[in-house]
């Protein structure tokens, strides 16, 4: 019983929410590209350059937010290259994504050596981490449960707020609807005069934005350092989640919480003396198991639902001609 209470307590939940945040941010980013019909295996690389440039920017500007800005900018550049090659040149998504991941790995290590003259990791050097947000009156309202909602770094809140925002975005906004149409029925989008190119660029850049934030959270959030390949497969796990959730924000959240839990739980187990190599493999095994277990269900087609929304949407806006004008 004592073992159980020391395993499962508020601290575990808090740790779970903390470890969920980076993967949730990057998966929410990937939700845009998934919905737009792009298979974005390059999330890992975008996250990695985000983490590296966040550290670099934080040192240059002396402020954590300057760092976040730099990290996001770097991830956006990668997202732009991805979109340029995949959308404009119609190159293979997997090849481009993998190449960008490899580029991110090599580039961050090379730059680390060029700028700091070190290998392995950047620690100290004046990196400014993100502040912790204290929610007022949290302690009064929740007592010992207060750490559940208060005391995280800002990007954790951003990650969890992104979920309802994305739900609304896909259901209620024109851009969200366009992204869904482009992903599910490109021909229909074309017939409606939606520019597939523009929508795919937009969703790729939105994805880069969130992936950059995820990277910044990795290197400036709870630990303020950068290490080689510090994204350690989180981007790939996010892609696994996106596959079985089909990019739906709520299901992405569920998947990410599962990983956050696996991560936090395995870190907890490590303190009980289980060999760390096996423990480290747990999140990947969970990802694989979930991918395999959930993929036997055919992917639900949302086309009918989208067609319905589209019709309502179009009838609400009569200024947009829904059929070509007769000559």
């Amino acid at each position, binding site marked *: 019983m004592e073992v159980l209470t020391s395993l499962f307590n508020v601290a575990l939940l808090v740790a779970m929410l903390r470890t969920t945040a980076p993967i949730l941010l990057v998966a929410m980013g990937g939700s845009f590209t998934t919905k737009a019909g792009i298979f974005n295996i390059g999330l890992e690389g975008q996250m990695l350059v985000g983490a590296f440039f966040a550290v670099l920017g934080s040192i240059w500007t002396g402020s954590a937010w300057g760092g976040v800005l730099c990290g996001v900018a770097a991830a956006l550049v990668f997202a732009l290259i991805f979109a340029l090659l995949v959308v404009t040149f119609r190159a293979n998504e997997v090849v481009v994504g*993998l190449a960008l991941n490899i580029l991110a790995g090599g580039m961050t290590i090379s730059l680390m050596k060029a700028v700091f003259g070190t290998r392995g990791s950047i620690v100290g050097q004046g990196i400014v981490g993100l502040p912790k947000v204290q929610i007022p009156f949290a302690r009064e309202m929740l007592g010992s449960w207060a750490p559940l909602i208060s005391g995280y770094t800002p990007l954790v809140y951003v990650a969890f707020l992104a979920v309802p925002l994305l739900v609304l975005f896909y259901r209620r906004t024109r851009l969200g609807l366009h992204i869904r149409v482009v992903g599910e029925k490109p021909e229909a989008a074309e017939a409606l005069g939606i520019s597939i190119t523009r929508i795919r660029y937009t969703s790729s850049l939105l994805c880069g934005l969130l992936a950059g934030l995820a990277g910044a959270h990795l290197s400036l959030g709870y630990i303020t350092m950068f290490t080689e390949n510090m994204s350690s497969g989180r981007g790939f796990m996010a892609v696994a989640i996106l596959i079985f959730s089909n990019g739906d924000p709520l299901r992405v959240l569920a998947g990410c919480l599962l990983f956050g839990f696996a991560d936090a739980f395995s870190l907890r187990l490590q303190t009980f003396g289980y060999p760390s190599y096996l423990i480290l493999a747990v999140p990947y095994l969970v990802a694989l198991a979930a*991918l*395999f277990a959930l993929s036997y269900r055919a992917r639900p087609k949302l086309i009918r639902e989208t067609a319905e929304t589209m019709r309502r949407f179009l009838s609400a806006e009569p200024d947009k001609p829904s059929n070509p004008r007769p000559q």
Partner: protein
Amino acid sequence: MSLRLRAILGQVIAVAFALALGSIVILLIDESPIRVFTTLLRGAFGDPGKVAGTLLQSTPILISGVAACIALRGGMFNVGVEGQLFLGGFAAAVVGFGLDLPTGLHMLVGLAAAILAGAVWVAIPAYFRVRFNTNEVVSTILSNYVAILLTSYFTIFLFKRPGGWSETPPILTSAHLPELFDFSRLNWGLVIGLVLALLTAWYFRNTPGGYSVSMTGSAPRFAEYGGVDIKKRGFWVLIASGAVGGLAGGVETLGVHHRFMEGFAPGFGFDGLIAALLANGSPIGTILTALFFGALRSGSLLLETDTAASREIITVIQALIILSVSAQVLLRRRGDAQGGERRWKF
């Protein structure tokens, strides 16, 4: 022939473009591109020992490249060569120090164990790929992490060598792959790789089975109409690819390190995939691209000591090469892609 010549020319131009981009990156990190490239050349081909070193580095890249080629031809990505290589290397090492067999036979059993390990490791992703259409890119990538951690665990906790080394005991000499020269560790692994590449090319070009694999990859509906069971074919293609990936690890263990250790072959699997992509899935072409990447790798050893650049700069160059190749292939055939149908969606 002229079509093929034009294709090769296109790849060469893409490589040149990537090298130009790479030079800009090198300038950005305050180093002279000329110095970096001459150092790379010197490190790769400076003397016979260095040439042998280049060939030694090319061997696992070549075998992993053939593994990737097989999957690419069948229309799939085996991004898990890295993990198969680690498991193959580990299995070969276990046979190498655990069994006591006559010379020659011991080596063959070791290689067979490596092949088996690679094939078994890819079996689950392969099954789910053909049965439930589970994206094999993600499942094989994730299984890499598991494979690497798992082999590290076995090495450190189960077969720990006394004295604190994180490596298995050395394999018996009866399991060693014979060396080709006395001045280098270059061994018969290179010959195995070359023969394998030629055999694979022959298989794809001259046999009905090879043709059906190519068709399963490039025109699955046509293949199915022609009577190919594309699910079964796809499964065995991935299994074959994984088996060759395991072989790459076995050759590395039995030929070079003579033991399995943590991080024993970092990135060879990925280099092999890149080499196969650059060769456009052709096993013969992979021989050339594997040599190219082997030369880059072996040249990069000098980079750390002789220049301010780190050896990962070659990773950057490789990635740039693949990016420019992926762009130019489709520039050339942009008309074909106008339908916008990409097969690599989940």
